[in-house]
């Protein structure tokens, strides 16, 4: 039994068996509820998920089976809790809510970590297949109404349109910030590559931005943009405004320039000098050398910088919720303001999932590029 899977399984089991709040039943969505432990909420039904979580920690269980069992355990926990919640809410007024407690979250995360650890040796296709199967099962359970009684699902039902719109907005904002940062970082990386003396100052400026606290930069941009729009009113006609998406995209982009610039610079320097010299000597022009030799060799290195920037973008755009840009951040901050945990989670969970998804996608592209080079 290896240490990491065993630890994950133990954490999950502890969350199930110790008296941690698992489910809490409250009179409405804002008031705190009365916490119940897993044993109190599920009764003897804690046994099957415990078993499902124990097996994947054993070395003898093959990785595919182990990962599938861990994922099944996570799903089973949710379904059982959904059932328990429905039971508890019976006879209570419609405003009553059954919220998820820290114990359940802990058990879920531990189960997913366990699945992730055991999936590591598997081929990319197998992993994708397992995750897809788990997601399909989750959706099937959701559409059959297994989670309908859970507070988070109630909150989502009430705000489905807003959440979907916020998700799209979030992706759009992050993409815009990434493109803007690329527009700034790419020419400067090229300039620094051609004239190495420029690289130092450019790097210092980009690194300097990182020192400014995120919230401060977002806030600072509002008066700055307002002043700019006052000075050049024509910008207003282009759709630029002092609050809303503009400051969010600009501030996020400012933070992305450093990882992008670093990735591009390292990528350009990655080309074997001998290959570049040979390309030159057999009659390739500068533009062709860049297109056919430097860029293809730079891609795997650049992808690493892109991955960092993309994950940062998804996280940072959340702050856009504070400057009127919308996105999932707006849900998080609205939830914070109302003290409505479910609303906060409704914003926060998709942000985490988006970041994980982006990271996974670029990482797999990276591996493929590195193999090709």
């Amino acid at each position, binding site marked *: 039994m290896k240490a990491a899977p065993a630890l994950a399984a133990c954490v999950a089991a502890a969350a199930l068996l110790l008296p941690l709040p698992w489910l809490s039943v409250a009179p409405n969505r804002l008031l705190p509820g009365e916490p119940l432990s897993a044993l109190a909420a599920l009764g003897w039904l804690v046994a099957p998920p415990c078993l499902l979580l124990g097996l994947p920690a054993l070395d003898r269980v093959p990785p595919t089976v182990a990962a599938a069992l861990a994922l099944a355990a996570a799903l089973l926990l949710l379904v059982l809790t959904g059932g328990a919640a429905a039971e508890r809410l019976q006879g209570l007024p419609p405003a009553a809510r059954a919220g998820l407690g820290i114990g359940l979250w802990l058990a879920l995360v531990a189960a997913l970590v366990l699945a992730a650890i055991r999936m590591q040796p598997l081929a990319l296709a197998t992993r994708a297949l397992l995750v897809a199967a788990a997601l399909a099962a989750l959706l099937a359970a959701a559409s059959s109404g297994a989670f309908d009684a859970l507070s988070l699902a109630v909150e989502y039902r009430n705000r489905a349109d807003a959440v979907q719109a916020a998700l799209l907005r979030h992706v759009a904002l992050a993409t815009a910030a990434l493109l803007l940062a690329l527009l700034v970082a790419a020419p400067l990386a090229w300039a620094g590559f051609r004239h190495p003396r420029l690289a130092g100052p450019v790097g210092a400026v980009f690194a300097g931005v990182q020192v400014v606290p995120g919230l401060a930069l977002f806030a600072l941009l509002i008066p700055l943009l307002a002043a700019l729009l006052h000075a050049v009113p024509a910008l207003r006609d282009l759709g630029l405004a002092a609050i809303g998406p503009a400051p969010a995209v600009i501030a996020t982009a400012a933070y992305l320039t450093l990882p992008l610039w670093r990735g591009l610079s390292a990528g350009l320097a990655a080309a*074997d000098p*001998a*290959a*570049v*010299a*040979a*390309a*030159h*000597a*057999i*009659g*390739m*022009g500068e533009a*062709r050398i860049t297109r*056919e*030799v430097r860029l*293809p*060799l730079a891609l795997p290195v650049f992808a690493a910088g892109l991955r960092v920037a993309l994950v940062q973008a998804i996280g940072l755009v959340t702050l856009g919720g504070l400057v009127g840009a919308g996105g999932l951040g707006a849900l998080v901050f609205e939830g914070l303001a109302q003290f409505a945990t479910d609303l906060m989670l409704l914003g926060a969970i998709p942000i985490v999932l988006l970041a994980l998804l982006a990271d996974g996608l670029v990482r797999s592209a990276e591996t493929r590029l590195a193999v*090709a*080079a």
Partner: protein
Amino acid sequence: MIAFEDVVVRFGATTALDGVSLQVGAGELCALVGPSGSGKTTLMRLVNRLVTPHAGRVLVRGEDIARTDAPALRRSIGYAMQSVGLFPHRTVAQNIGTVPRLLGWDRTRIARRVTELLGLLRLDAALADRLPGALSGGQAQRVGIARALAADPDILLMDEPFGAVDPITRRELRAELRRIHAETRKTILLVTHDPEEALELGTHVVVLRDGRIVADGPPAEIIGPGSDAFARDLLGGGQPALRRLSLLPATEALDATPPPPGAPELPEEASLADALSLMAETGQDRVALAGQDGSVAVATVLRPGA
């Protein structure tokens, strides 16, 4: 084929070449040899305009190259170097086909040429689809030479092409180059710091020192008694006369006297050094030469060309 006229090259404050004039005839394998910093690589890099002269001019195929288009000139001249510089993201076949592709050859013609070159360089055809990372040092060097030869240039520049391979592979590659030169009669400029390589491969050897040519001629001549002392010292390895004998064919010392009965016989391709070695080994002062009527006497061996 290539002519340098009073060429001066400076890099900052240092003078790399100081008034160099040299003629390289068509079909010659001209070995540029000299210590590090003598300017041999710079001299070669002038030919395809990787270096621009500060004074003097360079003529290739009778044309002043300052007036030609540099990329077009480079595509018309093969180039192979010590660090090979294969493109790591392209297959062996794509690497070899680079210049033909730049010249706009069609796919089938490129594919045919690649197959031809893999054969010429004795590379396994199965290597064509591999990436350079999967090749041994010797194979990579062969692919580099194949890439240089791809568009069938009449001039080939080689910058220490065998510098980074092990001695056995190096000997194989040298033999390969000699064969390719004999088969294709290309004009080859070879930069080397290995005197033995220069003497073995060159039909024309140029010795450089501190940016000047100190000696220039056929190998046996450049190491002969009348040649420059530095050149003899560099190339002779302490025994210039013996080196010279190894460069001259035994037929040089052949006279009409029939070989005495029981005299040992030299193989047809033997050098004067081989003749001397055989005499020292057998104690005979006259030996026979296979395929020849006369014989070789020790007195003539010691005074070749006299």
